[in-house]
């Protein structure tokens, strides 16, 4: 198996792109990544996407984007695993390069959501849940996270306000990210007073829907320096699954898929959580940050929220999370999100994160979650410097 590195990164601003189509968003991110790697050609393209068919009426987007980008003829496919589509696509690209079947591979996440009305998007997102046994009963995706958050509060003795540090930290970090959707810090008071969506999940517990695209170029590490002065090594990429429906889990408050994929990733990289310098969590909702921190071994069960309250998740803390704004404040274009996490990690590990730079960051980890934990992709990257 070959060692794999990221030799180029590219992204578009997350937000409402009413003037751009899905294929244009994809092309801009791909073009930026190819320029960054100083390449004119790729062997294959993996496109992470969840809802192109449902929200834009267009499937078959691997070919659509390859052709639109002037790359007609290459291998190109879409990879889908709900909100975990982005990092799942990275895993497919990683397998192709590590296995020696492709040399220069682009991996993209792209999503176009804001052309549609809110309740249409709410229904589409519910497809990440179990259609016959959750969505049929009127559950929105938000409400499934609300069920988890209520039970977490009940079992571990937290109040809703205790979750605020996750959202406050994400917004504080997004201020300095030019690609983030929001650039305004929030306060505890704003968090407490924010509008309820599905009790106890309110607006400021939740990440916003958005349009976006982010892309990386992968190559064998042996030739990475030919393309980039600062290649970033992929030390691990691992996917694990759990039941889609929360009611089918052995313990709804423990992300078994998150724990298994983290363990696989630690084992691939030969390291443990103590070695990780920063962690991009899948903070679609504040409760998911807590559950992901616990599943990945950064906090004991029920202590993920306490870790945030102690300030350990901020840039100066033990394990900085959502260092460029996270899903909460960078925005959550669902199928693209996993690749934004990867681009942000690579930015940190190249030492290019500006005011948000984590000093001496060497090992960064991301956990991209599909649904409420049914697909979890853990990626570990290492600075090549």
């Amino acid at each position, binding site marked *: 198996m070959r060692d794999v590195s990221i030799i180029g990164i590219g992204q578009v601003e997350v937000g409402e792109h009413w003037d751009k189509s899905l294929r244009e968003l994809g092309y801009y991110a791909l073009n930026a990544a190819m320029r960054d790697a100083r390449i004119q050609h790729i062997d294959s393209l993996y496109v992470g996407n969840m809802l192109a068919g449902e929200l834009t009426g267009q499937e078959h987007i691997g070919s659509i984007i390859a052709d639109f980008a002037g790359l007609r003829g290459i291998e190109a496919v879409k990879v889908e695993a709900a909100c975990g589509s982005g990092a799942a696509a990275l895993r497919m690209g990683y397998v192709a390069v590590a296995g020696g079947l492709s040399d220069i591979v682009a991996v993209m996440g792209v999503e176009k959501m804001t052309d549609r009305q809110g309740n249409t998007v709410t229904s589409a997102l519910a497809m990440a849940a179990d259609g016959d046994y959750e969505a049929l*009963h009127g559950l929105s995706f938000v409400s499934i996270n609300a069920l988890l958050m*209520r039970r977490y509060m009940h079992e571990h003795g937290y109040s809703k306000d205790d979750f605020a540090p996750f959202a406050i930290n994400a917004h504080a970090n997004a201020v300095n990210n030019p690609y983030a959707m929001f650039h305004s810090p929030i306060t505890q008071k704003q968090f407490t007073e924010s509008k309820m969506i599905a009790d106890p999940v309110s607006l400021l517990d939740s990440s916003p829907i958005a349009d976006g695209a982010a892309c990386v170029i992968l190559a064998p590490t042996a030739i990475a320096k030919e393309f980039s002065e600062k290649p970033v090594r992929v030390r691990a990429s691992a996917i694990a699954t759990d039941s889609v429906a929360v009611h089918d889990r052995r313990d*709804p408050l423990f992300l078994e898929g998150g724990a298994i994929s983290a363990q696989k990733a630690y084992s691939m990289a030969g390291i443990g959580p103590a070695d990780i310098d920063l962690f991009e969590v899948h903070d679609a909702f504040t409760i998911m940050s807590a559950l992901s921190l616990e599943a990945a071994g950064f906090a004991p069960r029920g202590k993920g929220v306490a870790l945030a309250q102690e300030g350990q998740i901020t840039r100066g803390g033990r394990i900085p999370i959502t260092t460029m704004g996270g899903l909460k404040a960078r925005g959550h274009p669902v199928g693209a999100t996993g690749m934004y996490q990867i681009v942000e990690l690579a930015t940190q590990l190249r030492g290019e994160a500006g005011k948000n730079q984590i000093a001496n960051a060497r090992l960064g980890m991301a956990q991209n979650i599909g649904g409420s934990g049914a697909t979890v992709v853990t990626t570990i990257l290492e600075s090549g410097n």
Partner: protein
Amino acid sequence: MEVARFWRTTGQRYQLTGEVCPNCGNKIFPPRDVCPACEHEAKTPYTFSGKGEVYSYSTIHAAPEGFEKYVPYTVALVRLEEGPLITAQLTDVDTKDVKVGMPVEMVTRVLREDGERGMLVYGYKFRPVLAGPR
């Protein structure tokens, strides 16, 4: 909801019919043919009592398509007395009175209407257990 999909799931939605594992005795709902506890094939039907207690709950203020007119409504995870968790709406109860651990029982209600000429989709909801005669 598509007619065939409606028809093939009526046993589950009307009677709470799941399965029991012939190997380990695990009670399974929703039916899934392979026991999640021991991975043995499990196709023996088993009808649940419909009694349980609230494990968690949430009141929805922003609904998916087809549920807008019911807002706000309360959904829950219910721990059935035979073991499994089930996801369903709560009914016949004021949201502010719902508590984790509250005893509930299954009733059959309309889940949604597919427009004026569409199908009425019936299924299980849960309500607080009524006090018996004194």
